[in-house]
C-alpha cells in the first residue's frame, strides 16, 4: 500500500498531467495517447486475427459477387469487343445519323472478322436481348460475309434487308460501348428511341415495372397477413406458462425443420383442384364438383404458401419483444381507468413496436426476394420478380439483365430499410 501511494503522490508534477504541454503523459514522459495505442495494439491485432476468416469469407462470398453483379449490370462488351470498326463509326457519328456507306463498310469488315473469329453468335445474342430474332441475322450474315463487295450498303442489304432497320442501328449504337445503361432502362420498361431519347416501350412489352409493383404489393400483403396471424400467436406464446409455451413454440418452429420443398409440395397436395381441401368442400356439400376453387398455380397459391413459410420470421421477433413485457403494465393501465382496448392500443401495442418493425421488415425483405415458392405454386399470375431474374439467369442467359433487375431490387430494399430507419429507427428493432 505504501509503495503505491508513494508512486501516485508526485503524480501532478512528474506524471499524469503536464499543463505546459497541455497533454497527458505517462510517468516516463511519453504521450499518454500513444502509450495507450501501443498497449492496446497487440490485443487488437489478435482480435483482428480471430475475425479474419469471417471477414475473408464475407468478402469472397458476399462483397465480391455483389460487386460483380453490379458491374455486370452496366457492363457488357460482347458487341464492342467483337465489332471494333462499327464501334468506332458510332463513336464518330452522333446519335440519329443515317448509317452511310462508311458505316456499312465497317459492318462488313466486322462481320468478316466475326466469321473469322467465330464470334457472330456472341454478338447476335447481345443484340437479340433487345430485338428478338436478330441472332440469326448476325450468324447468317457472317456466314456470307466474305461475299460482301463495295458498295457495301447495297451489298449488305442484298444479304438481308433487315440491316436497313433504323431500330437495329439504334440498338447496335447502344451496344457499341462496353458500359451501358440500356439494361437498367430495359428493366424499367424504358428504351431509347431513334433519336436516342429515353422513351417507354410499347404497351404490350411493359412487364418489369408491373412485376416490380406486383412483387412489392404481394410482399406487403403477405407481411400484413403474417402480422395479423402472428401477433395473437406471439402474444399467446408470451403469456402462457413457460412449459406450455415451449411446446407451442416447437409447433411454430416445426416448419423451419422441414425442407422448403416438402412444405411447398404439401401445399400443392392440399390446395390443388383435386386436392384435399377441395375434396373436403365437395364432400361436405359446400361447393359442387363443377366449381372447385382454384387456390393453386395463381396468386392465391403464392400468398398462402409464402405466409406459411414466413410466419415464423414474424412470430419470433414479436415473441422476443412480448415475453419481457410485464403484465402489470396492462393492469396498471386498466387500474388507471383504461378499457381493455385502450390499454392494448396505448400501452401494450407501443411496447411491441420494435418487434412489429423487425418482423415486418424481415418478412417483407424475404418475401420480395422469394423464388422457390412462387416458382412451384405461383403458376402464371403468381410469379414474382425473382422468378424473372432466374429466367434471365437460366433461360435467356441475359445475365446483365438479371443483374440490373437484381440491382434495382436491392436498391428498393435498401430504400425501404432507410425509410424504416427514418420512421422507426434501426436501434428500435429487436430480432430476438
Amino acid at each position: 500500500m505504501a509503495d503505491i501511494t508513494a508512486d501516485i503522490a508526485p503524480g501532478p508534477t512528474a506524471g499524469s498531467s503536464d499543463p505546459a504541454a497541455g497533454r497527458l503523459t505517462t510517468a516516463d514522459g511519453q504521450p499518454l495517447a500513444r502509450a495507450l495505442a501501443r498497449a492496446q495494439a497487440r490485443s487488437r491485432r489478435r482480435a483482428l486475427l480471430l475475425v479474419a476468416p469471417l471477414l475473408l469469407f464475407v468478402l469472397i462470398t458476399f462483397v465480391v459477387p455483389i460487386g460483380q453483379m453490379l458491374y455486370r449490370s452496366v457492363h457488357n462488351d460482347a458487341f464492342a469487343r467483337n465489332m471494333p470498326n462499327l464501334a468506332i463509326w458510332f463513336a464518330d457519328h452522333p446519335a440519329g445519323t443515317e448509317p452511310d456507306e462508311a458505316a456499312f463498310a465497317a459492318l462488313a469488315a466486322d462481320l468478316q472478322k466475326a466469321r473469322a473469329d467465330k464470334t457472330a453468335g456472341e454478338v447476335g445474342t447481345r443484340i437479340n436481348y433487345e430485338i428478338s430474332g436478330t441472332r440469326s441475322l448476325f450468324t447468317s450474315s457472317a456466314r456470307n460475309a466474305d461475299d460482301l463487295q463495295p458498295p457495301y450498303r447495297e451489298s449488305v442489304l442484298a444479304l438481308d434487308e433487315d440491316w436497313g432497320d433504323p431500330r437495329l442501328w439504334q440498338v447496335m449504337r447502344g451496344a457499341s460501348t462496353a458500359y451501358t445503361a440500356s439494361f437498367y432502362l430495359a428493366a424499367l420498361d424504358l428504351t431509347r428511341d431513334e433519336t436516342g431519347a429515353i422513351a417507354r416501350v410499347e404497351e404490350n412489352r411493359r412487364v418489369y415495372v408491373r412485376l416490380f409493383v406486383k412483387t412489392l404489393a404481394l410482399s406487403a400483403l403477405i407481411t400484413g397477413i403474417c402480422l395479423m396471424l402472428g401477433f395473437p400467436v406471439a402474444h399467446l406464446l408470451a403469456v402462457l406458462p413457460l412449459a406450455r409455451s415451449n411446446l407451442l413454440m416447437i409447433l411454430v418452429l416445426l416448419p423451419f425443420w422441414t425442407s422448403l420443398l416438402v412444405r411447398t409440395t404439401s401445399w400443392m397436395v392440399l390446395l390443388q383442384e383435386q386436392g384435399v381441401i377441395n375434396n373436403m368442400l365437395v364432400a361436405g356439400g359446400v361447393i359442387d364438383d363443377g366449381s372447385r376453387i382454384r387456390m393453386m398455380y395463381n396468386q392465391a397459391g403464392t400468398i398462402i404458401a409464402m405466409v406459411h413459410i414466413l410466419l415464423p420470421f414474424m412470430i419470433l421477433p414479436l415473441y422476443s419483444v412480448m415475453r419481457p413485457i410485464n403484465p402489470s403494465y396492462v393492469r396498471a393501465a386498466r387500474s388507471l381507468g383504461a378499457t381493455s382496448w385502450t390499454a392494448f392500443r396505448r400501452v401494450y401495442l407501443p411496447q411491441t413496436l420494435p418487434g412489429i418493425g423487425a418482423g415486418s421488415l424481415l418478412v417483407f425483405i424475404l418475401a420480395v426476394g422469394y423464388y422457390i415458392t412462387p416458382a412451384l405454386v405461383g403458376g402464371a399470375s403468381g410469379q414474382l420478380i425473382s422468378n424473372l431474374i432466374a429466367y434471365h439467369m437460366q433461360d435467356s442467359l441475359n445475365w446483365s439483365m438479371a443483374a440490373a433487375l437484381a440491382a434495382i431490387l436491392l436498391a428498393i430494399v435498401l430504400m425501404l430499410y432507410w425509410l424504416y430507419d427514418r420512421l422507426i429507427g434501426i436501434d428500435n428493432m429487436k430480432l430476438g
Partner: protein
Amino acid sequence: MTAQPAAASADGAFVEFDRVQKSYDGETLVVKDLNLQIGKGEFLTMLGPSGSGKTTCLMMLAGFETATHGEIRLGGRPINSVPPHKRGIGMVFQNYALFPHMSVAENLAFPLEVRGLGKAEREAKILRALDMVQMGRFASRRPSQLSGGQQQRIALARALVFDPELVLMDEPLGALDKQLREHMQFEIKRLHDQLGITVVYVTHDQGEALTMSDRVAVFNDGRIQQLAPPAELYERPKNSFVAQFIGENNKLPGTVEEFGEDRAVVRLASGEVIDATPVNIRSKGQQTLVSIRPERVEFKPEMMPAGAHTLDAEVVEVIYMGDIFRTRLKVAGSDDFVMKCRNTLGQTRLVPGQHVRIGWHPQDARALDPL
C-alpha cells in the same frame, strides 16, 4: 396502543370482503372465507409470507382476479362484476409499471386522458401530483432515466393523480434499498395523512407493516390470522403463527399444569415451571407453546415481579449490537433462547459460561397453541 380507527364502526365499512373465497385450480383454496372491513381513511396492511393469499386479495379488490365465492363491496356497492377500469381505484405496483414509452408527464396524463379531462385541467392536476411527491422537475423525463426511488414516487403520483378514494399498493417498496425504503415509508404515510385516502398495502416486511399501518391483517394459509393495530399485534399475538411472524420471539414448549382465567402455569420438558398468560389454550394438560419477546426477559431479580417462577440459564454468546446486547442463552435444554439487554451505563455485562436466573412478567409470556 393506537385507538381503534373508524374501521369497525357500525355505519358501514368503505371496503368490505364478505365471505370471500378464491381458488385458481378448483381443488385448493388460496383465500379461505375472508371477512374484512376497511374503514374510510384507514391504512390497512395485508402482511404475510408469500403464498399466503394477501396479493390475491388485493388483486380481487383491484378487479384483476374474480372471487370464486363471496362478495366484495366498495362504498357499500358490490363490485364483483365491475371491470377494473370502472372501479376508480389507484394502484401502485411492485415493479412500478410506469409506461416506458411515455414521459413522466404522459404517464400521469394517462388516467386523466382516459377520463376525458381537458388539457388545462390535466396539466394542473399533473403539476399538483408531481409536487406532492417532490418530482416537479422531472415531468419530461422518461422512466428509464429515473432512479428506483424516483420511479416509485412517479408511480405513487400516477396512482393519486385522478383523486381516487382508495389506493392499493402491492409491495411498492420491495425493490428499494433499506434507507430509501424507510424514507418512502415516511412519504407514503405523510401522503395518506394529508390526502385522507384509504390505503390497502400489501407487504411481507413486518417492519414496514408495523410502522405505517392503522391496522395490520396477518395472512397465512389463506386466512387472516389476526387483525389488529400494530402494537397489539406485537404485544398480544393471538396465535403462534403471529407471534413467530411478527418480531423476534422465544418459544418454550410445555404442558399446561394450572389453568386459570388470566394466569397459567406451564411445565417445560426439562421439568421446570414457568408463569404465562393463557391466550388460546383451553384446559389443563394441554400442549402449549409459550412465547416471550427477547426484550421482556429479565435476569436481575429486582426487575422481576415477586413470586414469579424463574429459570436457570447459561450464557452461550453475547453479541454487541450497539444499542443492545443480544445474549443467547441455554434454557430448558435448548440453546436458542434470546435475551436483549439495553446498553445502559450500569448494565451488567454477562460473559459466556455464566449462569443466571431469568424471569418475566406473566403477562409477557403468552401460552399459545402448539405449532
